[in-house]
């Protein structure tokens, strides 16, 4: 493999790592403040235990998110210096505002973590809310920068230089709203189901079930609402991609021929050499409808585009199928949860808890898959139709070493964090038993 490939792998690996911590950092504070509020209202010790446990989780994930994010802000430049040289000023605005949002978050976190018994109760609780809001704000801001890479706006290219830069127009590019909406929902769905699943598993093991049921309720509520909205927002994204990046849409659907009334493929094995998809299920006209809201609309196929502008089709297609499949599952599970609120008997059934325990990791798998769709689907462009990835990479050879360094360090970190969380849960199980 070449230097470029290692740069891409390193970027993908570190971003894929960061996004998990970022999602949890955005969403966990909300769980924490809800539980905290319940403590303030009822003074039941379970809520205090839960709040304190979640607070430790927030602190640990925040720091892991922060250090991996710090690494990323260097990495964007270290791996893609040409990209940053030209694009930096254009997408600088979301990043500088993001910096401000982080700051607010870090300050609020300082108050929250150290404020127990020292600050007035309401003020203390509000600092918790600020952590959550600024976390979500920073998520939306970075995603806007990413959306700009998909839908470049706010500048002109003359002789390879970016001129007439308008940072505000760059920020409000065509993709920012759909992407930011979808990502924010994804963070809530993924974290909600992940946390709920962990507590469901503890309930199955009959460890401190009262506490875990409270925890489950809070987490799944956020997750379920988001999971129901997710496919709707995903549909908006798909319609958006159809107009703005037709190649990406064709790759997502592994759609080679341009057709009117194009069918939707479910499953299927992509053969990139022969340019066909075998073993698929076809739903006639459905793709045209999903992409353009019209069963007869024309959908461009991959064969319309020059060979050197095609992304890797198979990966994008499989990743998209995976995301949508999981999205459907999570939506159904969310409905089951809402029905279960009416039918209390379900909560005594082990199958109910097994369901949520098993679904636990799926949200995050969908998040990773979704990002693979977005990012790999944009290839070979780093800035769609403006700059190629290979022209942006650093001239420094030997990236293979830094790639492996990150892999080793981050894997070690992931293992440690998982182990720490396990210890937190054990401690929690012993707290009010």
């Amino acid at each position, binding site marked *: 493999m070449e230097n470029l490939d290692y740069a891409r792998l390193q970027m993908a690996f570190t971003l894929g790592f960061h996004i998990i911590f970022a999602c949890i950092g955005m969403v966990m504070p909300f769980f924490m403040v809800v539980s905290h509020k319940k403590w303030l209202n009822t003074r039941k010790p379970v809520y205090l235990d839960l709040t304190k446990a979640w607070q*430790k989780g927030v*602190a*640990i994930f925040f*720091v892991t998110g*922060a*250090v*991996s*994010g*710090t*690494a990323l*802000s*260097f990495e964007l*430049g*270290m791996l893609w210096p*040409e990209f*940053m*040289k*030209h694009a*930096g*000023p254009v997408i*600088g*605005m979301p*990043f*500088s*505002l993001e*910096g*401000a949002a*982080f*700051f*607010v978050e*870090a*300050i*609020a*976190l*300082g*108050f929250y*973590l*150290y*404020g127990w018994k020292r*600050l007035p109760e309401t003020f203390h609780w509000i600092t918790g809310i600020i952590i959550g809001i600024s976390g979500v704000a920073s998520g939306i801001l970075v995603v806007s920068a990413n959306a700009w890479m998909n839908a470049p706006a706010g500048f002109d290219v003359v002789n390879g230089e970016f*001129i*007439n*830069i308008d*940072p*505000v127009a760059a920020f409000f590019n065509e993709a920012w709203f759909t992407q930011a909406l979808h990502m924010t929902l994804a963070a809530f769905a993924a974290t909600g189901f992940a946390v709920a699943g962990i507590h469901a598993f503890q309930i199955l093991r009959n460890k401190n079930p009262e506490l875990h049921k409270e925890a489950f309720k809070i987490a799944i509520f956020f997750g379920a609402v988001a999971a129901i909205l997710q496919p709707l927002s995903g549909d908006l994204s798909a319609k958006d991609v159809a107009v703005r990046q037709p190649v990406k849409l064709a790759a997502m659907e592994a759609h080679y021929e341009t057709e009117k009334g194009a069918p939707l493929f479910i499953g299927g094995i992509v053969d990139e050499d022969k340019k066909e998809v075998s073993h698929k299920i076809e739903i006639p006209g459905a793709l045209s409808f999903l992409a353009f809201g019209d069963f007869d609309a024309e959908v461009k196929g991959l064969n319309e585009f020059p060979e050197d502008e095609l992304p890797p089709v198979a990966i994008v297609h499989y990743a998209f199928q995976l995301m949508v499949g999981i999205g459907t599952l999570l939506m159904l599970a969310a409905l089951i949860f809402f029905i279960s609120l009416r039918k209390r008997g379900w909560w005594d059934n082990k199958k109910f808890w097994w369901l949520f325990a098993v679904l636990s990791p799926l949200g995050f798998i969908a998040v990773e898959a979704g990002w693979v769709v977005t990012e790999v689907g944009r290839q070979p462009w780093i800035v769609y139709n403006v700059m190629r990835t290979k022209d942006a990479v*650093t*001239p*420094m*050879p*030997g990236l293979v070493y*830094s790639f492996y*360094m990150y892999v080793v*360090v981050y894997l070690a*970190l992931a293992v*440690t964090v998982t182990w*720490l969380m396990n*210890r937190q849960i*054990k*401690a*929690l199980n012993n707290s009010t038993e």
Partner: protein
Amino acid sequence: MLYVVLFFTFFSLFLYVLLGGADFGAGIVELFSSRNNRKLTRDTIYQVMGPIWEANHIWLIILIVILWIAFPAYFNIIIIYLHVPLTLVLLGITIRGVAFIFRHYDAVVDASQIWYNRLFRIGSLITPVFLGMSFGTLVSGKIILTTDYSEIGFADIFIFPWLNTFTLLTGLFYAALCAFLASTLLIGETTGEVRKIYSRKSAVFTISLVLIGGAVLTYGYFTEMVFVKDFLNNPFSLIAIALSAILLIPLWQAIKKQYSMRTRILAGLQVLLVIFAAVNTHFPNLIITDTSEVDLLAGAAPDSVIRVLGISLIIGGAIILPGLFHLMRSFNMINPKKES
């Protein structure tokens, strides 16, 4: 607006060197504490630094973001030619950052603490060394700008410019500065006998700082480094350094008397003077390569960008600075416990 942006650039640099530095220094002080004092140092640091711990490091992010938005051409050189040491800095930041949080938030306190402590202390030492080496490299006159990467060897372009006697000295200088800041900060958080320990440490690190600083200049002078020569010929830089030397006297008096707030202000002032002296020498040509000098402002972003950035910084600053100040006050970082 350019001035607003420049102001925030150096303001973040200053605060990162100061607050981030005190934070790195905390680990260094711990590393050089006797076994008995380590636990105490650890707890004191947690008390005083904990609440603003996260915020300290965001100054670095703000600095980087400003550089890449406003001064892309300048940033481009840093980020290509300092790839290796900066990667090591990141590694250090990651390791000590997570070790710090793990050791205070692990639900079970057991033997793994030994590892967290070890990683925290070692990370705290190597990170500022590499950071100082990176700063040193920029002005060392050793960076080779080229477009023909295969002609000149990998090590000549990407290793030797940052790995040499001069940069090692600048690395040690920054580490000593960090340790000095942390021990000075800790004086205000303790009382009685313990306070004496930190006063003594603070004195030791001040002396090391002066010695290493002298070594940097002497070495640079005898190897005819452009930066050092210009430094020694620049009246304002010399005045700044002289002033910082003079200020050592009240600082030492304050340390002896153990006035904590005054020691903090004086220590901050020292940092300000050192940065001013260094930056002023060559401003705006803040990178010196083997053959030329690179102007920070030359490749600056167009006005439209600078304007938006300036406005964002002003608004951000207006929200953040009072919040940060309030945070520091609430937890005694500013206005520490009175003499007891």
